[in-house]
């Protein structure tokens, strides 16, 4: 039972983060022309997303995944020990 719960949480997280990844990569690129109407820090937004925005979000995705999964591993190992 434990294993199934662990795996389900992992899959949800992975799916959710991949969705963010997909949006900032492909959806943002697809609409780059439209996004260019907005400016951030002096950059057109479409260009900014490809040059910096998406990259920073990638780093955040990876950091969150590592933090969450490492915590999940610890939680499950202590509950296993406690049983």
């Amino acid at each position, binding site marked *: 039972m434990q294993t199934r719960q662990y795996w389900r949480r992992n899959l949800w997280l992975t799916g959710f983060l991949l969705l963010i990844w997909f949006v900032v990569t492909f959806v943002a690129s*697809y609409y780059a022309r439209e996004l260019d109407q907005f400016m951030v820090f002096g950059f057109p937004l479409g260009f900014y997303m490809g040059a910096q925005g998406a990259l920073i979000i990638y780093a955040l995705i990876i950091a969150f995944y*590592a933090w969450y999964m490492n915590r999940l591993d610890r939680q499950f190992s202590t509950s296993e020990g406690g049983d």
Partner: protein
Amino acid sequence: MNDSSAQLRRYYTLYSASFFVFVVALAILEHYGMPPRWIGYAFLFLTLILYATIGVMARTSNVAEYYVAGRKIPAVFNGMATGADWMSAASFMGLAGTLYLSGYQGLAYVMGWTGGYVLVALLLAPYLRRFGQYTIPDFLGARYGGNAARLVGVFATVLASFVYVVAQIYGVGVITSRFVGLQFEIGVFVGLAGILVCSFLGGMRAVTWTQVAQYLVLIVAYVAPVAILSYKVTGIPVPQIMYGQVLQKINVLEDRIASDPAELDVRRLYLARADSFSARINGLPESLAVERRALSAEIEKMKGGNVQMRDVFALERQRRELPKSPEAARDYWESLQQQAAQRGSELIRHTEPFPGKDEAASDTARLNFITLVFCLMVGTAALPHVLARYYTTPSVREARNSVFWSMLFILALYLTAPAYAAFAKYEIYSNLVGSAIAHLPSWIGAWGKVGLVSIEDINHDGILQLAELSLNPDVIVLATPEIAGLPYVISGLVAAGALAAALSTADGLLLTIASAFSHDVYYKVFRPNATTQWRLVVSKTLLLVVAVLAALVASQKPATILYMVAWAFSLAGAAFFPALVLGIFWKRANQAGAVSGMVLGLLVTMYYMVRVQFDTIPWLGIHGIGMDPWLGIQSTSSGVWGVAIGFVTIVVVSLLSDPPNREIQNFVERVRYPDVFRR
């Protein structure tokens, strides 16, 4: 663990400090008149000696140390090593140049080569680490059972890694020939020596620690010149933030250039030239003879008149270099026609996404952009030399953290590359374009000699128009210090950085190829009883053989090398990505499915790239195989088809055949869950 980690940090702090002192010392010596060539030598040999020392100190005869560095590399250092492993000569030299030349379109590489790490982090690295063997084919072999999946994996590893390693060694040849004036072929073998001292004695352990050292050199070398440039232009040395302003200035300059009558005139002249080549191609085979007669007539006329011999020689050379056969003439003129048409085409706006002459062309450009990003990402998450790095961390936890560190260290370069392009473009557009050709700065001549810069005054007005300047992408990074008028020691530093980038990637790749042969083919398939000592002997011998072969290929200066590197991503993605991901996330995937999916994915990718890219393959005697791309997708993105077909095939074939046995299902469970769940 913590003790050794603190000690490592001390070592590398000391190392960075001494490197800094070394650079400053050279700067002082330059000020007192040390010639540039000596500075080049100092950088080349001192860094090589440094890497060699680390390589020799980290020598080993233990199998686990040799293949996976004893799984003792802390997350931060593994991140740095991955960064160096990952950032190749192409990232270091080519990326900023590509962004310079194609503006927004070049961002496909920036996104693709970083976003792939999201896939590595979420879908592969922790599971591979929990599996905990030596190579990527190892995983395929264990997951799908039998040797078939393993051997297909070996084939794909070697195919993708070998082209890539050739490109690195080629890069070393370019750098050494430019900066220390070695002959290209000799430079290639100096590079070879540099690679071998790192990987030969100590395998993964030595490669890891030299890669950490190389990362530090390459990142300083990459960021320093553009930070100085940023300081000169904007007063703040943080190029990554300041280039937004510069982009706006570029926009203004672009408006001016695009409406300059002389510039328009030059572009018209290039288009006229492109048309004349088209006419000649259409007139084949007669046009070749006509061309030769016209040249001969002109030479005769000149010989009679009062002209300089130099001009006559130039024409004679032109006549000599005319292609011999109509087929060769077609290829030759087509390339000239494309060149002229490109130079005559409208100015590419730096920040404009998907430029095209109409809606349809723009949509095709967008489709190509998105598919290229996809292929680069999937390829990143499938290149064996990167994935194998995550076997070297002490735990699954550290593997997850390590991907994050890798990403941070890689971002340091990828966030800078677009800034590099913007600052270089600003310098060139504002200072170079519109100046007198007789008084151009000296770097143009120096790089012209190596064939990376060329200038043609097509409208004979003595003024440089933008379209008259043609730059090889590599030159942007290599020449920026000179473009910005910085001292030569910075140029030397950049060369050392480029060298570090090329060597570190080549090390990782060579080791991956040698391990695939020695571990997966020799040990796992042919001689499961071989002693560990003998396995290492085989591995080291193979490393030597592969390295020499790669250097020999590189010294031939293969022309299509850049295309081939882009192809390596598509090939690796199509071969590995579906099989690895489904192997972890879908228990039902079985051997028949995986093998047929990998083979079919590879075949479709290769079929598409060859037929879209080439019409004839002279050395195989094949003609007329060219085809129109499907949906207008270029050959560099051919992995889209391969990956899609790979996934579909694995699913369909697996469902049509028996599910994998109990043992393999247990294996998948083991890879998915932490140890505590194992009962």
